[in-house]
Structures are given as structure tokens and as C-alpha cells.
């Protein structure tokens, strides 16, 4: 009797999985480095995941606050064993663990955000956030009175340095004399330290605070001081309604939908992709009411140029802090240079070490 029962259950399971296979339901897993409520990086990715929920035959799930390194490898392996079809890992430090797991599960597609390694079944992706940062720099340059803008930054890696440079070029496009002061916190998410870093910039006369950090700590500091701020990742205006001018933001949903479609149609390839503003992957948050209309128009005009591919931002002549020409007149910096950028443009005060 027991044997029969077990057989029945087994049959049921088998038939169930067959049905699933027939419908080709895609199981999509996401791994986040921080809790999704952080209003920052992981939150933006999760909005992208939620954008998939409406697609027929797609089931998503996520694991949040997964530490980089061995923990993440375990989580990925778990997902792979459970039969997920696509796994997205959204932090730099997941790269090597993902590479390892991808080799163990050749039939599963792996996508890694912000890294540089690929495998037969593992691609990587990122967005040209520097385009949106350029535009937010224009807003900051238009709003500063002290001509000093503070920038609270996480780690001196090319991604962050590139963002600071693009931001500064945006500032200079509307306000050539303004400088951007940088303070490194060496953390992605530590509201207390980030707020303190913002305060230290306010103390040296900055009247707009921008950030490459995942917490709204710097926004709080700007609002308390009664000056302006530029958010990051997602619209942070809820944290500092009086200070928040705009924010360069991520919009992952269209990108993730596109990947799912490619997998469905069998056109997905394991490659490195770096789409820009024209795909909507990066954008500007709505302007605060304190941003004057003519400045808004100017920024939107620049956005149209970037979307049309007419403004590549890193176009020479661009000098470094010492005044040496790094990008020659008329030259558009190639992506390889942008991805390995380790120097500041003229007008940035601070070190890249």
C-alpha cells in the first residue's frame, strides 16, 4: 500500500513537472547584496524584478542581503539546484562565485551586474550611469551659489571615478568655475559615516551635495543644513523633500524584460552589454520644484542630445587635475578607457587613492 502511495506521489510530481516544462514557465532568480528596502541599489534592481511579474509564464523570486563571497555561492547553487532558468546576481563581488557556479550548471543562464568576466552561459551587464550623472551635474552647477559642490563617494574604483568625472563635466557645462570636492567613505552603505562625510563637505562651503552611495544619509545632512542635494539609485526626494533637486536613477525593468524575451526566443548570448540612456536603463528623477524652468529645459535638451547619441560626454579636450590633456581634442574616449578610468578631470578636488 505504502509503495503504491509513494508511486502515486511520484507520478504526480513527474506529471506536474512535465506540465511546467510544456508551458515553459521561466523561473528567474535575483540575488541582492543589501535589503531591498534600502531605497538604493538593491531597491532599484527589485523594481526591475517586479517589472517582470506581469509577463505571462515568468516566475521571479529573490534573496536579499547576501554577503559577497562564499555565502553568495551557496545561494546561487541553491537556486541552480532548484531548477531556476536564469539567475541575476547584482553585486560586483558575486562575479567569481557566479563564474564557479555557472561552470557547474551549464544549462542555466547566469547574468552578473557590474563585473567583467563571462563564460559560455554567463553574461554581464551594466548601464551607462555616467550619462545621467552628467545631467545631474548640470543641475548642481546651475543651482550652486558658492561654486563648491560636495560629492560623497564610496570607493575609488573606475565606476565611481567615471561618475564623478561625468558629473563634474556636467557642472562645468553650465558653471565653468565651479569645483567638485570629493570625500571617500570606503563603504557602499553606512548612513552614519555618509552623513558625516556630507557634513564635512558642507563645512568647507559646499552648497550642493551629490553622492555615489546607497543610503540617503547625505540627503539628510543637506536638508538639515538647508542646502541642496542630488540623490542616487532611485528618487530619494522622500528623505529630503526640501533639498532633493533630482537624482541619476536606474530603471532596470525594460532591460530585464528584454533579457527574458531573448532567452525565450533563443537569441540570448553570453556577452557583456553596456546600454545607455537611449534604452531607458538610466534616467533622471523628476526635478524638485526649486529647479528653475530654464535650467530644467537646458538639462532636458542635453538629455535629448545624449539619447540621440550626439553627446558622448567624454569628448576631448579633457584635462586631468594637473592640466595634462588625457583625451585629445575631438576624440571620443573608447569604452575600454571609460571602464578603466582612474584619474580625475580638472575641477575635481580630491585624490583617487
Amino acid at each position, binding site marked *: 500500500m505504502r509503495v503504491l502511495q509513494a508511486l502515486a506521489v511520484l507520478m504526480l510530481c513527474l506529471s506536474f513537472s512535465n506540465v511546467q516544462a510544456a508551458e515553459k514557465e521561466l523561473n528567474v532568480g535575483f540575488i541582492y547584496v543589501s535589503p531591498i528596502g534600502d531605497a538604493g541599489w538593491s531597491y532599484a534592481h527589485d523594481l526591475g524584478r517586479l517589472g517582470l511579474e506581469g509577463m505571462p509564464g515568468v516566475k521571479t523570486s529573490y534573496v536579499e542581503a547576501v554577503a559577497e563571497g562564499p555565502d553568495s555561492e551557496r545561494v546561487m547553487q541553491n537556486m541552480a539546484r532548484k531548477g531556476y532558468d536564469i539567475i541575476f546576481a547584482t553585486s560586483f563581488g558575486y562575479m567569481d562565485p557566479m563564474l564557479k557556479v555557472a561552470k557547474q550548471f551549464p544549462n542555466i543562464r547566469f547574468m552578473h551586474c557590474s563585473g567583467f568576466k563571462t563564460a559560455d552561459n554567463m553574461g554581464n551587464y551594466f548601464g551607462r550611469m555616467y550619462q545621467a550623472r552628467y545631467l545631474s551635474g548640470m543641475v548642481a552647477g546651475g543651482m550652486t551659489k558658492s561654486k563648491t559642490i560636495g560629492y560623497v563617494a564610496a570607493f575609488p574604483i573606475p565606476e565611481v571615478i567615471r561618475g564623478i568625472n561625468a558629473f563634474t563635466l556636467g557642472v562645468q557645462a553650465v558653471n565653468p568655475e565651479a569645483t567638485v570636492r570629493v570625500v571617500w567613505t570606503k563603504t557602499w552603505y553606512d548612513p552614519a559615516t555618509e552623513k558625516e*562625510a556630507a557634513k564635512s563637505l558642507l563645512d568647507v562651503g559646499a552648497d550642493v551635495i551629490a553622492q555615489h552611495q546607497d543610503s540617503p544619509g547625505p540627503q539628510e545632512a543637506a536638508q538639515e543644513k538647508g542646502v541642496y542635494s542630488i540623490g542616487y539609485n532611485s528618487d530619494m526626494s522622500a528623505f529630503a523633500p526640501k533639498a532633493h533637486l533630482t537624482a541619476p536613477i536606474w530603471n532596470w525593468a525594460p532591460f530585464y524584460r528584454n533579457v527574458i524575451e531573448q532567452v525565450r526566443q533563443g537569441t540570448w548570448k553570453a556577452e557583456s552589454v553596456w546600454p545607455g540612456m537611449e534604452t531607458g536603463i538610466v534616467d533622471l528623477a523628476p526635478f524638485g520644484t526649486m529647479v528653475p524652468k530654464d535650467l530644467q529645459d537646458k538639462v532636458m535638451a542635453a538629455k535629448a542630445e545624449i539619447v540621440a547619441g550626439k553627446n558622448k560626454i567624454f569628448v576631448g579636450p579633457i584635462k586631468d587635475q594637473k592640466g595634462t590633456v588625457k583625451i585629445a581634442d575631438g576624440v571620443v574616449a573608447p569604452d575600454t578607457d571609460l571602464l578603466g578610468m582612474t584619474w580625475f578631470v580638472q575641477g575635481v578636488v580630491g585624490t583617487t587613492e
Partner: protein
Amino acid sequence: MELAIIIPLLAAAVQSGTPILYATLGEIITEKSGVLNLGVEGVMIIGTLTAFVVALATGSPTLAFVAAGIAGTLTAAIHGMVCLWFKGNQVVSGLALTILGTGLADYLGNAYVGRTAPGFTPIALPLVSEIPIVGPIFFNHDPLVYLTYGIPPLIWYGLMRTRPGLCLRAAGEHPAAATAAGLHVAAYRWFGVLGGGFLMGLGGAYLSLSYTHLWTNNLTGGRGWIAVALVIFAFWRPGRAVFGAYLFGGIMALQLRLQASGTQIPSSLLLMLPYALTVIVLVLSSWRRGMSEAPAALGINVEPAD
């Protein structure tokens, strides 16, 4: 450097030193009773989370502050049970408490990440905040900072000038003699553990009620460990703890301000400063051990006398 940079720096030193000060004073009371609690970080973070959750639920920062103290007391009670009831190893229990506290706070606090709660804001004290230099440094903060101005003298008086304070120190110095004198050593040690836990909880609360009005995993960021080191630096004296806490707070604030001022020193070196100072301080303190008032029976469990 000019005054316009130094005054905000010193004011920031007081502010960033405050959570460390609460925790250091708590650890001093605990260690004076003869119990070593290395779980400060864990106790603090439970206080941080409790304060945030209570402030969000009730809208009252004051209530949240007191609740954090109680939560700190309860967390420290775990250490008390292990060390005072079961005579467990104090070092191991303390380390376990740190892991337990941070893990539990991460788990329970997950739903609260990214929300803002009401908290304390700076209130300039009338008259005294007008005093040049001293006013903006010490009297333009939130109420939780002002509270710390009163606590060290109280602890000093309580420990050094009252009978219960003498008994508590006896429990930490020579528990056998204290027992012979008819004192209930375990009771004083319990007081040290729970009272210390209360202050550590308050220190944690400062981070989510004043310093920021947010909750996130690991908001304490190692401040509990700095407090443990500061107790040694302070030679177990409340007065020196104030100095030490502000010194550390000052170094933390200084490295960010040096960067903002456009220095060419690599930021990695500047960020090392607080931790390098911790090591230097411990070395210096061990040289001048003679001045130290380390409790002789620190970390040694007492078997029941009867």
C-alpha cells in the same frame, strides 16, 4: 587651520564621540563589577534597532530611547545568565553575544531598512550656546549629547563615593573577600552587567535617533569594539572615558574633513586613523599599567560561596 574649520570639527568630535561614550561608560560599570562583556557591539545594535522601531511605532523619541536602554539590559542579561548562573567563559559568551546581537538585529530589522523614524534634533541651549568657541562646540547638540555631560560624574560619584559603589568594586577586585565580608557578590555583578547593558543600549539608540534617523544593518559599524578598547585606554575611569571618546570621535570626523579640505594624503591612510589609534592607545596604556585601575578579578567567575 582656522577657527571656522576647527570649531565644526570639534563639534563633530563631540557628536561622533557620544555613542562611543555611552557604550564605554556601560562597559566600565560592567567591568568594575568583575565581568568582562565583549558583546558591546551586539548589545548596542539591539538598542539601535529597538529605538528605531519604537520611535516609528509610537512617534516618541524619548520613549524609544528608554526602550533601547531596556532592550540593552535584556540583551546583556543573556551574558549575565551565561557568566553568573552557569559560570561560562566570559570571553566566549561576550563574542557570542556580538554575533547573536548583530545577526538578530539584521534579521528582525530587515523590514525597517530604508524607512525614517522621528528622532532628536539639535537644540541650542540658551545663554551657554552663545559663549564663543565653547558654545558651538558643546551646547549646540541634541538632548542625548547633553545627557552624557551628566552621566560620567554620576558614575564616578556612584562608584567612588557611595557604599553600593564600593561593594560593586569589591565584587570586581576581590570577590572572595567581598563574600567573606557578607556581600552578595553575584547581585553586584548582576547590577554591573544589567546597568552596563542599559547604557550600551542607549549608545546604540543614539545612532538611530540622533546621528541618523534611519535603520540599516550594521549601523553601529564597530563602535562597540572601539568602546571595549577605550575602557582600557580610560584606565576604567569615567573622566578619561569622556576624553577618549571625544578623541576617537574627533579622529573619525577629522579624516573626513581633511579629505573635504582637499588634502593630497590618500584616503585609505586617513581611514586607518581611528583603528591605528586604537592599537597605539592599547600599547601606550599597557606601558603605563601602574596608573590603571583594572579590576583584579576581571573576567574571573566566582563559585558560589555556599
